């Protein structure tokens, strides 16, 4: 079972904070990999408003190809952080040429485009790079989006973090999602590594989605180019959230109604029953199954945690105003915020969505039994 932790803080923090929490929870991951998602960035990234940031791993040749490609389509480098590593990698960590985090200036001709179109084009560029990289095995691209950085690598989280020197001061963020992998795939593929990302939405999961195949079939048949990959069954959690927000205009409080709808008998007496029944029926193909704890981040910097219908996985949220953390294990939360009021910790149950907003004042619990605001 993987280990998850997420932080949302008023002050920018180093990702090492999250790595330390993963290290505390190390009993639960086998050191087969680590994934980081950083948003609401601090330091030099803060001034790059709107500039998309490309995160990935490149070979020297891949980097040259990247430069040629980006130049051709009119992207100019605005700021970059290139992580060069020592000559020898620690045991269990593969040797790479370059870990790249680079912010770009948008091409001039994009200036007049509507926001939606820019977003879709950014996704298109990421997918194109990903495909180029897969052809020659010289690039792995995780995200290409404003105010988002992703780092993923195989190996023990702490070892990887020290090797990449993630404690550097240029790397700070107010939102950090981190996952320590317990590998359940035979071959370790970085594209199977959480968190998953699409258009500003990132989620990571601790579990196994047994309804993966039919959900994948549904998403891939939507005709949206970003719904690809699926090296991991958990990637669909990110895409479902994206689908319901972008295509259905439904906000986070409907996420649970889509992935784990209430039973019909309950809907009969639910104040929103009629509407929820429509969601349940038409989104039936997106219903998840199996034990899953999902932690995610939305473009508006809300962090959330939801559980599967039976609440088969652990998960706790706690903190103090200005700093909240989500963790798959209590010990992880203790490591992150030892001085919080533990009596206010929340373990979201099978109907709950725990949300911490960008104001970081409180943990808001919304239940599927609540009367949600009308959608339209």
């Amino acid at each position, binding site marked *: 079972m993987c280990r998850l932790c997420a932080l949302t803080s008023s002050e920018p923090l180093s990702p090492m904070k999250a790595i330390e929490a993963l290290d505390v929870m190390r009993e639960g991951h086998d050191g087969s990999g680590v994934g980081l998602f950083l948003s609401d960035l601090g330091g030099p990234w803060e001034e790059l408003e709107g500039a998309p940031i490309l995160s990935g791993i490149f070979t020297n040749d891949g980097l040259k190809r990247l430069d040629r490609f980006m130049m051709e389509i009119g992207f100019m480098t605005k700021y970059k952080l290139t992580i060069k590593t020592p000559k020898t990698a620690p045991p269990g960590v593969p040797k790479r040429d370059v870990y790249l985090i680079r912010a770009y200036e948008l091409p001039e001709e994009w200036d007049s485009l509507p926001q939606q179109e820019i977003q879709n084009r950014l996704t298109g560029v990421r997918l194109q790079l990903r495909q180029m990289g897969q052809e020659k095995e010289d690039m792995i691209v995780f995200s290409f989006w404003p105010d988002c950085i992703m780092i993923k690598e195989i190996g023990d989280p702490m070892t990887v973090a020290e090797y990449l020197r993630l404690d550097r001061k240029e790397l700070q963020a107010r939102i950090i999602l981190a996952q320590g992998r317990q590998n359940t795939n035979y071959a370790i593929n970085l594209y199977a590594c959480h968190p998953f990302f699409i258009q500003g939405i990132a989620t990571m999961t601790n*579990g196994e989605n*047994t309804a993966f*195949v*039919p959900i994948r*079939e549904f998403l891939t*048949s939507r005709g949206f180019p970003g719904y690809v990959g699926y090296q991991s069954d958990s990637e669909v959690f990110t895409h479902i959230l994206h689908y319901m927000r972008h295509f259905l205009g439904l906000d986070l409080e409907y996420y649970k109604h889509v992935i*784990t709808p209430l039973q019909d008998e309950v809907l009969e007496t639910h104040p929103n029953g009629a*509407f929820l029944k429509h969601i349940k029926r038409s989104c*039936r193909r997106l219903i998840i199954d199996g034990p899953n704890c999902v932690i995610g981040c939305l473009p508006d910097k809300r962090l959330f945690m939801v559980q599967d219908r*039976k609440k088969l996985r652990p998960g706790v949220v706690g903190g103090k105003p200005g700093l909240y953390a989500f963790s798959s294990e209590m010990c992880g939360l203790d490591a992150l915020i030892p001085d919080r009021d533990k009596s206010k910790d929340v373990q979201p149950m099978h109907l709950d969505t725990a949300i911490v907003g960008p104001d970081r004042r409180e943990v808001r619990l919304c239940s599927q039994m609540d009367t949600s605001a009308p959608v339209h």
Partner: protein
Amino acid sequence: MLSDGYISPSSLSLRDLPWRVHWSLEKCTLCGRCTTVCPVHAIELGVFRKRVVETAFGITQEPSNVYKVFYGIRQKTDPAYACIGCGMCSMVCPNDAILAYRSEEADKLRFHINRGGQPRRRGGRRNVPGGILDRIKFIRISMLTDPALDAGRHEFELRTLLGRVLPPEENLRLLKENGWIPPVREIYPLIIGGMSFGALSPTMWEGLQMGVAYLNEELGMPVRMCTGEGGCPPRLLRSRFLKYVILQIASGYFGWDEIIHAIPEMKEDPCAIEIKYGQGAKPGDGGLLMWYKVNKLIAAIRGVPPGVSLPSPPTHQTKYSIEEAVAKMIQSMSMAWGFRVPVYPKISGTSTALAVLNNLTRNPYAAGLAIDGEDGGTGAAYNVSMDHMGHPIASNIRDSYLTLVKLGKQNEIPLFAGGGIGKNGNLAANAAALIMLGASGVQCGKYIMQATAGCLGSESDRCNVCNIGVCPKGITSQDPRLYRRLDPEKVAERLVDVFLAFDTELKKIVAPLGRSTSLPIGMSDALGIDDAAAAERLHIAYVV
């Protein structure tokens, strides 16, 4: 006959018959129950002559013999009276003196049951044991990473949707605009397939309806039953129980005059309307209710004169093209109930199923597609249709589902699979396999008849006389002397048993796969088969 006597080409001996009746002289009490009960008069009272040699003691008297007469059971060898193996004789025998045995070699009867140029007609099934469904295994067992669920303790949502499900965007848009959203029923995924009032006896029908009502109202299981083509009893049409019924309309339109006239008086809408274009057991052939079974009651419900055979044409008379027939009929039926009732076609399994399906995807009123495979059963059909016509259900359903996936419309047009589900007794396993291949639910008839009323049919040509109204169990007979044998209350009880057991078995299948929140439609990663060609054809894993 005498050894030098006359034989006709169709003179058969006991050895040539498929079923032979063994009878024991020592045990028989000559009560006559067996000859009375035999539905085809295959046995009769036999008077046998026997020579007994009597040797006296001593040498003065010559040995002599006497001819004696004894009585017993004689099996007829005339093809018209050949034993059907139903075994009712042994059921009624007080001393277990009689039993019908299957002949060990292929019978010669098959060459002679076409007297008068009339090919063999019968009820029943294809009579081919085995099948691909039983060979499909569920291989994705949840271990460690996702602990298996507890079939007895956890909550399971095992329902399915019947009706056109709109794409989420479309559904929410129409909801906002107050537009028409097609009706959708949330039902139990095992539907009692279309068996008509007429094909089934009144007691059998009543029993099934009572069982369905109990399952719905007392146990909260939304089980639905299809009427088949034969109308619906007027009282049921006007009762609240109609909502548990799927009304079928087929090419003979039998019973529809009554149904249409009852619409203004209906308290509830029916669950759905099934338009039958084909039947798996006799694909491309119409329905048939032979005259034996058309008594006054049946005639009244169907709106026909009694005592005549009722063949439905192979095709709907309105059929000019698929667009015409399907679109017009679906629309008229939808309109009859104010677009509140799902209307879907049922076709027999065929290599052209995808053409039908593609057409339906463009018809916004089409509420689903039921496909009935070659292993479906029937109350009456030509033997050749049953044995040789049709398409197996597994690949038909799989192809249809994958086509829908390609179109992005999987589960929007729910597919219902029929034909051979549970034919070897593995109802839940077969149903689950089809659901994971892509069916939204399954339709089942034969298993229900066997399990709820003790139908004697097997996959070895046993009984199979549903067509001529002599069903020894009273399941498919319209003769009160026969159908009184069947207690409708007991049928209802058995139906409830069947569904409860099915429900538990289905949970025992999906729980170890880690599924409980929704019916695992299209979960093909859970399936495997030990046949590489079948695995490739069905796009599932090959496991040995």
